[in-house]
């Protein structure tokens, strides 16, 4: 950890918080789907909001602690380039996933699947895509910092 730059430590904090949220979400959402009993949309929203608050709390605690414990580096052109390239990777994952999800939901609609189940699946899929996009954004940043850009 001592060998990491301030930016890298920041990214690890975000990754840990996101992993905790993703674990909570996916460990409940996926088995519910596999079992054929997905949560209805009205129960999904508060649950997702609670996970979001938990991720926010972990991030906040980590970044406040880091700002006291580590020397803060200014951001320079390399940080901006890495942010841009990693952000692009995240958007590719999100964009590709949303297109795939759109097709999936359209086909379900055509074959007359239950609309409530469709909506529930759509919400879970979008949150999963957001998690994947943010993960690929953060992991890309770590790779670019370590292996060069």
């Amino acid at each position, binding site marked *: 950890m001592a060998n990491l730059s301030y930016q890298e430590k920041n990214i690890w904090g975000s990754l840990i918080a996101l992993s905790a949220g993703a674990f909570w979400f996916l460990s409940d959402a996926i088995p519910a789907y596999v079992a054929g009993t997905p949560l209805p949309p009205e129960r999904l929203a508060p649950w997702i909001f609670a996970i979001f608050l938990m991720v926010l709390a972990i991030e906040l605690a980590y970044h406040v602690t880091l700002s006291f414990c580590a020397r803060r580096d200014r951001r320079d052109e390399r*940080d901006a380039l890495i942010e841009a390239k990693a952000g692009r990777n995240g958007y590719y994952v999100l964009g590709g996933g949303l297109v795939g999800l759109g097709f999936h939901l359209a086909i379900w609609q055509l074959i007359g699947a239950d609309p409530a189940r469709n909506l529930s699946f759509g919400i879970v899929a979008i949150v999963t895509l957001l998690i994947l996009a943010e993960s690929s954004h953060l992991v890309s940043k770590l790779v670019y910092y370590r292996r060069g850009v």
Partner: protein
Amino acid sequence: MITNRIKSLRFAADQMSQQALADEVGVTRQTINAIEGDKYSPSLEVAFRIAAVFGASLDDVFDWEPD
């Protein structure tokens, strides 16, 4: 590919540290380290700033070889 002689120029300049060079140029120490290790090609402005710190021309600091 862009290579450079920053490390040897630093040592020639009274063993200037990466942090000292970074402060003079206005980037982070990690960026100087990445440039030295050929993991990052700096912008033209940063390249000129680095050359100016050593009182050298761009050609004295950086080399470019076609891939």
